[in-house]
């Protein structure tokens, strides 16, 4: 591997990311999968870094999943997105940041389509007006939320209480980074680092002390792939994709996986349990799995937030081995206690995959 070769490519794919004043839109599925991630994003941006991030409860799904599953026409998705832009316009913002990778790709695709076919934009404006009497300006900048954490990565590193370093050995943790397909594969110039060797997560990992693993199936789909998972007959493809990735990364002995997509951490986390049940195989040390995180969760960990406040108890793969490596203290007794110490009840432990 020639690291300088990657640096040369990264230098070609840097995009302008405004520092402040963003209209934030959540994902429609992330809060169910990893409920602490989006809250931590706003916590870091607003309260740790003092930035202006606005969100509204009137925001809805972008329609991306339905669009990619071919269940709604493109005009419908465009009108939904036009309404989101109207909410941004009404709130007085022009920088639009999406939590979801598919939404991010969806917004970029729609803006590019309108650029190529202005008559379609005119038609969507008419449809939006007929539907809800709203008008919109197009965002001046569109970013994915991971772009923002990438931009703030060094500020986060300065405030960090923990680093991605094995406290016992002093060695950098070996980190697999997985980028959601819709981040830059459609529009390489819109992603930090491009499509083939994206830098957005690598930059965070390097800044926070870890070392990045480049393994053969790095670019491969996590296994979610809407038409793989949402079409029930295709679910075998989903888990076989995930299995292929884990088999490929296994020889590198990763300590953790970081992702920037709603579906990727979920499937790479949950399918480890299924692979263990089906194949009797686990990929972490001593029968554990490889813990999978969102970048917001990792930012929260290095900043010293309580792992259980980050929602890490909802991961299938136990995170405790990673917390131990980083030297993060946690209370096992509090793992399944919610707000105000409410008992969340302990889940049943799997038969093969070791969990805490």
């Amino acid at each position, binding site marked *: *591997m*020639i690291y300088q070769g990657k640096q040369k490519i990264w230098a070609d794919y840097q995009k302008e990311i405004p520092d402040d004043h963003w209209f934030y839109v959540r994902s429609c599925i992330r809060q169910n999968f990893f409920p602490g991630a989006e809250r931590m994003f706003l916590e870091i941006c607003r309260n740790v870094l003092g930035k202006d991030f606005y969100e509204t409860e009137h925001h809805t799904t972008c329609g991306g999943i339905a669009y990619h599953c071919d269940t709604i026409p493109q005009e419908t998705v465009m009108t939904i997105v036009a309404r989101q832009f109207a909410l941004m316009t009404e709130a007085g913002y022009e920088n639009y940041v999406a939590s979801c990778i598919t939404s991010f790709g969806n917004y970029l695709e729609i803006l590019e389509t309108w650029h190529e076919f202005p008559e379609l934009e005119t038609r969507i404006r008419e449809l939006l007006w007929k539907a809800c009497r709203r008008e919109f300006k197009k965002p001046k900048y569109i970013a994915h939320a991971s772009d923002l954490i990438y931009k703030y990565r060094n500020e986060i590193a300065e405030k960090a209480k923990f680093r991605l370093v094995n406290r016992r050995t002093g060695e950098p943790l070996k980190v697999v980074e997985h980028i959601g397909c819709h981040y830059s594969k459609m529009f390489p110039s819109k992603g930090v680092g491009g499509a083939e*060797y994206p830098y957005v997560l690598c930059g965070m990992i390097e800044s926070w002390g870890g070392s990045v693993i*480049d*393994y*053969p199936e*790095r670019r491969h789909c996590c296994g979610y792939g809407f038409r793989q998972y949402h079409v029930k007959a295709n679910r075998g493809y989903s888990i076989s994709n995930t299995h292929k990735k884990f088999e490929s990364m296994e020889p590198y002995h990763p300590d953790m996986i970081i992702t920037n997509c709603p579906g990727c951490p979920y499937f790479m986390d949950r399918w480890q349990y299924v692979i263990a049940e089906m194949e009797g195989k686990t990929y972490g040390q001593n029968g554990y799995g490889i813990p999978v995180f969102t970048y917001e969760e990792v930012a929260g960990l290095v900043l010293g937030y309580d792992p259980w406040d980050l929602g890490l108890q909802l991961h299938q793969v136990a995170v405790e081995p990673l917390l131990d490596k980083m030297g993060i203290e946690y209370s096992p007794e509090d793992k399944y206690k919610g707000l105000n110490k409410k008992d969340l009840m302990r889940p049943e432990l799997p038969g093969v995959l070791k969990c805490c």
Partner: protein
Amino acid sequence: MKDNIVIVGGGIAGMEAARQLLRMGLNPIIVEKSDHLGGHVARWHRLFPDMTPASELVGGLIEATGQANIFLNTEISFMNRLKDSYNIMLSNGVSVIAKVVLITTGFSVFDASKKEEYGYGVYDQVMTNSDLEQWFNNGNDSRIDGTEINAVGFVHCVGSRDEKARNSQCSKVCCITAVKQAIEMKQKFPDAAVYCFYMDLRMFGKKYEDFYISAQRDYGIRFIRGRVSEVSENIDGRVIVKAEDTLAGKPVKVTLDLLVLMSGMVCNRDCSSIAGMISLQTDSDGFFKSRDNISDIICSSREGIYYAGACTGPKTVPETLAEARSAALEIFSYINRA
């Protein structure tokens, strides 16, 4: 006093034209920006389809052009049209009034690192056709030396016929060069599996088809019709190539010790600056535009300016030499007419 004929570019086109012009009793001046004559061919080892040593051709041309005025390490600083000639200022400070300018600037090799998915410059065991040819010449390349070569792959059409790379043109020579290099690798590593990944094979030249059939029949080289989608690196440093076999109708994945990218021909980087000096036209592919692509390929739209070789588009060596001779004859006729 003889009229000056400035030849811009000291590759095989420029030298062959100079050789012919000298034989006609004219006065060619070769301006070459690098420190040697012969252009790309001078760095090549053997030429298809007869495995002729490239050094024989280049050496012969250098010897034959010994009487010409040759400026190495020299570029055209500016050029402007006078009444019936051209005023040319060279980067070494010499000024030349030339009756005729023959442009033989050739081509540039496509920068394979632009095809990021193939990993050139990122993965250790990925090289280009030019790199491999240099290894054939000097036997010195860490990607091959000291590596156990059990499997080699060649990717055709790297940067050619590729809208994403903004090059729609076929580079003409890559198919047959890949066949040649695949055979040479098989000769050096007889036990190695050698694969060629191609879109289609354009075996248009004399003996090309025979050469291709020999590669399959006599050397067991495996031709897979399908484009490579991505290249990655294994934990042991070998490269993993994913492609689609469109004849078998299924994806293929092979692990290789060496991957060779057949970088195509793109217009010379100096093309637009030279064209700008005297308002020459360039084509949509960036190469110089001939007055007519059938009957006047060596003529420009301006009086006294001629082309030869790959400055107007990808050419084979025989085509380049033929154009150079044709241009010399046309120049001889033009000077006598004037």
